[in-house]
């Protein structure tokens, strides 16, 4: 083999390593759908608690149903994708936030100290924290914008009327769950369509 051909082969090996490492890292879990699912769940809970029957059950039932659906879909998705440290870090943040939010809102509801201002302030602060943490790890500016919107909704809830707080919450839900979720799903499908590099 000539020196030039040997050099080409070595370079080929190096680029194979780089492309395969990139391919492994690109296989992060797809989580865009969870944003949409939870956004829809919040809207269903709000609508049910405002106009439905057995209104006290609206939030607990919807939240538990959304958790079960997330668990089922996530476990199906996990079967076809490998575990990554990044994926585990991401899911840990969101699971911890979900459990915290569930405990606090449940206790507030049971104790009768439930109030829309407190509810939106807590949800806004917690979702802001989780979105900000994820965005800083993933270096994703769009998600950080969502964190800012949630924090803004939390601040609005502390200072404004009940109607304004409700509007801020619905708007934050729409932009940070539905719009961002769809945007994340589009990004993920684009990334998948970039295609696998074959060895």
């Amino acid at each position: 083999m000539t020196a030039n051909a040997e050099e080409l082969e070595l370079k080929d090996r190096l680029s194979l390593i780089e492309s395969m490492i990139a391919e492994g890292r690109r296989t992060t879990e797809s989580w865009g759908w969870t944003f949409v699912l939870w956004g829809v769940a919040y809207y269903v809970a709000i609508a049910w608690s405002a106009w439905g029957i057995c209104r006290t059950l609206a939030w607990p039932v919807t939240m538990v149903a959304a958790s079960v659906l997330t668990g089922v879909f996530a476990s199906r998705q996990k079967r076809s994708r490998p575990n990554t440290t990044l994926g585990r870090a991401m899911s840990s943040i969101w699971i911890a936030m979900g459990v915290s939010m569930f405990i606090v809102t449940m206790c507030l509801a049971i104790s009768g100290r439930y109030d829309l201002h407190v509810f939106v302030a807590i949800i806004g602060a917690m979702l802001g924290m989780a979105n900000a943490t994820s965005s800083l790890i993933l270096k994703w500016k769009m998600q950080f914008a969502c964190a800012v919107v949630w924090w803004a909704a939390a601040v609005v809830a502390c200072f404004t009327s009940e109607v304004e707080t409700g509007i801020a919450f619905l708007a934050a839900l729409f932009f940070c769950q539905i719009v961002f979720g769809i945007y994340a799903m589009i990004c993920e499908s684009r990334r998948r369509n970039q295609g696998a590099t074959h060895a």
Partner: protein
Amino acid sequence: MPELPELNPVIHGKLRLALLSLLVGVEEAEFTWLRAKTGSTDGNLGAQLLKLEEAGYVSVEKKFVQRKPQTLYRMTEAGRAALTEYVQALRQLLENERKSDHEDRDRKSNAAYGNGDTD
């Protein structure tokens, strides 16, 4: 002249190198995922993974998930170290190739100007 590093023959195989490079970025991966990413056949992939397993570079775990068999592969510490060594050796070899290329070019240009290997 410094001695040139040797490339680890277990890792140097194209498919085995691709497999180790894929596994270095994930905690564990299923056989089917590795097959999809490398575009290899079941038989070839199994054989190459077995070689890596025998060398102690990957560990394998077989289990049943909802009555379906699942084979998970993980990179071992030895595999990680071997891949790092391989990349370093590869870089050194490329650096040496580059240096010898430069030397050849310099020698040729010196010869062209008539002040080359005259002494």
